[in-house]
């Protein structure tokens, strides 16, 4: 029985990820279209809705040529190394107080740990492709990962400290009735957004596949569904990161002024998804507007700005969390 | 715009270069110097008080007897332009002037390849526009198929 439930949960995560990918690609096209004074897909289905489905079918049925001289084993495994962590990261996301695929006590830590495997796959893809642009893209992925990962973890700490738990459900629950954490942790919130943009490879920081410099970066030599997997993982990472942002800083499934009991059931996951998609919309907005920073500017920004600021804010929060009960006269 | 022909001739003559002046109907005075003296003539013009430091263009003309390489210089100090012509025999060597005018780097390569000249003193004397085995295109002896010929084929 538990095995069956386990399998169902894995399937749920997979289904969610694939559906998300399809929806997000459609959304990206439509949002970028609006931002760029064009229409986006219009032909297939109402408002071009089935365009993405058709694209997935195309990717699945395309011939999959393997370039000569590639490191065959790594070349084949790399998309999986990118894809699997971003699939596994869905496990700990709290869609409501009861809806979560795996209720982990160390959920946040688990998510970060598993997401930090993604650049490994990117490096494998870039290294094995036997393409110099891919290699440069892979090296950039490493460089930017080293510089953003630490600030991102540090920026996620203040909400954890206030909530007193690494369980993501608990963190979201702690924001019910309390002010959402973006306000008490405003600097951490902004730092987390920036570090997250680097993590999901979004335009001001899309170093490893900077299209005007590196052609397509680590994905240059990939085609058909192997490329599809890399592509899908990228969108799924965007979703996971937006969901993390919602959980940590934007109250999870909560709505202001409405107590948790009323949201019980189907309402809460919908609110969670709507919030997540709104965050993704903001990302796409940024993506459609801003130019790209240079890799050395990004690294300097990561080490000289993001890291000290996030460290400082962790210390401020630590003091604040200790002082808070004292200030309230021991109420909490 | 058009320079004082006697002044330019004097500058060139002072540098010990045999110069002859052709008065063109539209372009104005065109100064002709021997091929061996071209770099020193350009140096004299560049270092003269008029400071012809800007190379507008460098190209060749196949006159039917030889190749005229035209150096088109401009002085931003006096706002004057000088055309310097140098006659090169077919298949001869074009001495690079890129140290005086870095702007000449690519035009020289193009000129050499288009007129079948060879380059000397050039840091990168490869062909610029075409690949090996393409004949020197701008020579009058290189024939191309005209539109009429294509039509009446």
């Amino acid at each position, binding site marked *: 029985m538990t095995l069956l439930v386990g399998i169902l949960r894995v399937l749920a995560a997979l289904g969610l990820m694939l559906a998300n990918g399809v929806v997000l690609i459609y959304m990206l096209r439509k949002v*970028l279209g609006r*931002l*760029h*004074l*064009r229409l986006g897909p219009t032909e297939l289905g109402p408002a071009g809705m089935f365009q993405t489905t058709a694209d997935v079918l195309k990717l699945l049925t395309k011939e999959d040529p393997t370039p000569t001289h590639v490191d065959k084993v790594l070349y084949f495994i790399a998309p999986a190394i990118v894809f699997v962590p971003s699939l596994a990261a869905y496990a700990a996301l709290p869609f409501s107080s009861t809806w979560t695929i795996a209720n982990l006590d160390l959920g946040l830590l688990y998510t970060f740990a598993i997401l930090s495997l993604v650049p490994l796959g990117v490096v494998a893809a870039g290294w094995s492709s036997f393409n*110099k*642009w891919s*290699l*440069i893209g892979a*090296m*950039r992925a490493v460089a930017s990962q080293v510089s953003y990962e630490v600030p991102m973890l540090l920026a996620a700490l203040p909400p954890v400290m206030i909530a007193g738990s690494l369980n993501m459900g608990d963190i979201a629950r702690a924001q019910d009735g309390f002010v959402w954490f973006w306000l008490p942790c405003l600097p951490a919130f902004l730092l987390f957004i920036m570090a997250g943009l680097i993590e999901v490879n979004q*335009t*001001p920081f*899309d170093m490893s596949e*900077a*299209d*005007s*410099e590196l*052609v397509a970066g680590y994905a240059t030599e990939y085609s058909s569904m192997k490329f599809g997997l890399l592509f899908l993982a990228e969108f799924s990472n965007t979703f996971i990161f937006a969901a993390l942002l919602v959980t940590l800083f934007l109250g999870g499934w909560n709505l202001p002024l409405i107590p948790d009991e009323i949201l019980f059931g189907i309402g809460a996951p919908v609110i969670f998804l709507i919030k997540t998609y709104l965050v993704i919309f903001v990302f796409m907005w940024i993506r*459609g*507007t*801003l*130019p*790209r*920073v*240079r*890799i*050395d*500017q990004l690294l300097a920004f990561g080490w000289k700005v993001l890291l000290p600021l996030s460290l400082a804010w962790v210390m401020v929060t630590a003091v604040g969390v200790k002082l808070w009960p004292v200030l309230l006269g021991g109420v909490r | *715009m058009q320079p004082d022909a006697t002044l330019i001739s004097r500058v060139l003559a002072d540098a010990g270069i045999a110069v002859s002046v052709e008065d*063109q*109907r*539209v*372009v104005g005075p*065109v100064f002709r110097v021997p091929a061996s003296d071209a770099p020193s003539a350009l140096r004299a013009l560049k270092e003269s008080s008029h400071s012809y*430091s*800007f190379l*507008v*263009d460098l*190209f060749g*003309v196949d006159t039917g007897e030889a190749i005229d390489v035209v150096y*088109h210089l401009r002085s*931003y100090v006096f706002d004057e332009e000088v055309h310097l012509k140098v006659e090169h025999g077919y298949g001869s060597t074009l001495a690079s002037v890129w140290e005086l*005018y*870095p*702007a000449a*780097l*690519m*035009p020289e390569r193009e000129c050499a390849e*288009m007129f079948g000249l060879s380059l000397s003193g050039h840091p*990168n004397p490869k062909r*610029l*526009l*075409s*690949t090996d085995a393409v004949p020197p*295109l*701008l020579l009058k002896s290189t024939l*191309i198929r*005209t*539109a009429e010929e294509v039509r009446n084929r």
Partner: protein
Amino acid sequence: MSDPRSIVSHAGWLTTEPPAEPVTLPASLKRAPSGVNELMTEHLVVNMGPQHPSTHGVLRVLLELDGEEVITGEAVVGYLHRGIEKLAEHRRYNAVGTLMDRGDYVTGIMNELAFALAAEKVAEIEVPRRADWLRVLLSELNRLASHLVWYGTMGLDAGAMGQFLYAVRDRENLLDILEDVTGQRMMFNYVRPGGVVNDITRTAEVKIHRFLKTIDRYLDEHDELLGGNEIFQGRMRGVGVISKEMAVAFGLTGANLRASGLSFDVRRDRPYSAYEEMKFDIPVAEEGDCYARYLVRMAEMRQSVRIIRQCIDGLPEGDFTAKVPKILRPPAGEAYAAVESARGELGVYLVSDGTENPYRMRYRPPALFALQAGEALLPGVMLADAVVILGSLDFVLGEIDR
């Protein structure tokens, strides 16, 4: 000591002496472990192009990279060579314009104008005043369209995508006007020796007036969207600095030259057509970096709008072309005519031998000289900067290769 290079500090550290010549290892030793080079690093030689997203045509840049840093760069051109100069020797004077269009395919009107001016000089043809004004009007419309393409691709090179489509929106209106007047969107074949092919149409005038109503607002929008962006400025400021001396030495013209602080514009200093009658300023910047080139071009677009306003308001009555024989046989002679195209001084040196075909037509491509300067700027910059530098110089490969 086999390798006397300093390990801790670089050569210019705490000294005003020029840095010592770097020791170059022979190629055979490059992989051998030495005391300093324990990582056995190698330089990476990559081909940027001919199929690369940001080479503006079919340019190939051979880059030697040390990590992200460019050691040397060599531009390899010729992929678009069509032999325009040779073909021109086999065309009648009226037909060469078709070839000129295909040189710099973004600024067709100005290319044709350069040839027409040279042919008129050598054949001593007087052009009617209305034709001159029409030429100026269309040139400026075309310059605006060309600068908009540059603005859009500049942003693409820097990684932004939105402004390209905004630029294309405005360019679309311009091409619409040009199509209305000339019948073509890019390969116009409109300016002929002696004048222009046909008069401006009534609908085109309406379209120009409509365009002029919105363009100022749109140009402000462009400026805010890209130029006001901090990331963009961070990418452009201080990158690819061309000093005045270097600009002159490498033969830069046009906006690239003016961004380095030398105010020379063919339209003002060698006035042709009706430019003497126009009022316009020549924007100049001193810094010589990519951002200066950006600012100069953006300011030039506003000046173009100014000239278009004057042209459309004061268009004189009269013929649009002089009486020119169908087969033009200019007397023997040589002529040089230059126009200020969107990329710089586009010159045509024409040699006539009295027959119906030009004896020799030399097309001076301003972009070729810009490319040389860009090539010289490459050593020592980051890979991402190389893309921005080449983009900021605004060359079109159709013109370089001819």
